[in-house]
């Protein structure tokens, strides 16, 4: 099956910020809105997987990841559809995939 790909270091920035724009540049909410959500919708409509390549950046703040991937799960009001569609590549930080999965699963908890 074909995959859509987002390489954050190339498609967005090498220095991701935090959650909101008011807190600093390249926030997770902006990444969700401008890049992740449109690509995710495309992946769903084309019934493809969406590979997120996390390598090549300086690192990620928790709030960036939570706003982006947790925000995506909140957008669809469920974690399953997000987890079933997304795949991750993270050689720089082997813990990142587990962290993101946790944020997605917990995103809709009150």
């Amino acid at each position, binding site marked *: 099956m074909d995959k859509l790909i987002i390489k954050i270091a190339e498609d967005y920035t090498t220095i991701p910020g935090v959650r909101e724009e008011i807190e600093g540049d390249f926030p997770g909410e902006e990444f969700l809105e401008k890049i992740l959500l449109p690509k995710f919708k495309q992946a769903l409509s084309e019934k493809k997987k969406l590979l997120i390549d996390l390598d090549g950046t300086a690192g990620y*703040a928790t709030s960036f990841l939570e706003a982006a991937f947790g925000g995506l799960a909140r957008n669809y009001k469920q974690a399953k559809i997000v987890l079933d569609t997304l795949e991750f590549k993270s050689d720089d930080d082997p813990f990142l995939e587990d962290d993101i999965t946790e944020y997605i699963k917990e995103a809709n908890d009150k």
Partner: protein
Amino acid sequence: MKKIYTTTEYKKRNKKRAKDRIKQTLLNKAKAKTKRKRLMGIPIVLQREQRDNDRFESLKAPANFSFVENTVEILTYFETIQRYINRRKPVLINLKDITNLTNDAIVLLLAFIKTPKITKSVPIRGNYPKDVILKKIFQESGVFGVNGNENEPKNYILTRQNKKAEGGIANELIKRATKIVFGQEARCVGVYRALMESMANTCYHAKPQQIAHETWWLTVYHDKVHNKVSFAFIDLGVGIFKSSKMTGFREKLTSFFGITDNRDVLKEIISGRKMSSTKIPYRGKGLPNIYKGLERNYYSNLKIISNDVKADLTENNYEKISKEFNGTFLYWELNNTNRWTS
């Protein structure tokens, strides 16, 4: 009637007056001579500076000028400075006799004296330590604003300040730090995360409408002897336990588990043990993840000081401090045993 100056009474009084005058003149001459001797060879500029300094109240700093090692004494010292400032008395921060200095104290001093709402426009000055090495560190830190040429290479210490979370600053500091520790510019995703989380935490003040009002300060210090780089981050906001993000979480901890001591609150925050019933809102994951960075060996020797708690997370030691620190302080070290990516 004409005054008769030949009376005994007049002569006696005149003699006494003359004697007193000559005594005073001699005394003044002696004083002037002593002063001349004291100032002999000292350039006129320095003499003027000395005279100027005399207006300031000299407050002697604790010999162990380390916030991490000597927390209560350092906080007491800053409290004393604040008292003089409140009385609008100019202060001289007297560091001449300090014998130990760490970058965490420098960053605290920087944040303190460069925050207008603390200094209230009262003049503050400082002198440098007698110790040559400590003096150099201080000069390079630019704490007293006389660090000379901006282009001068600063081998020991770098300082940055901002109100927002700046990935560019974090990245720049990591590159410099890794060049020192690992011999090449590298990426440390854990350090980047810790820096960004610390900066982001500063944005959230006690009042949510005051987002990004508070300034954070960061110093990065290269310890050549131990080949490690230490990061000291500080903000003089309200502290972790009074932050707007913590209000709901604290209330739940108290009602569910009866936890009121801030040491226990911090343990709960970083361990996440009871999250299922007292869930931290999704905005509150920064601190637990800074702790995860230590567990994952992205850095070492993580310490946190905030409000009435001082925690050494490497040693799992949580201490209640007798002086309240209104702010958040984070410290960690990067050495060649920590994880990095080329």
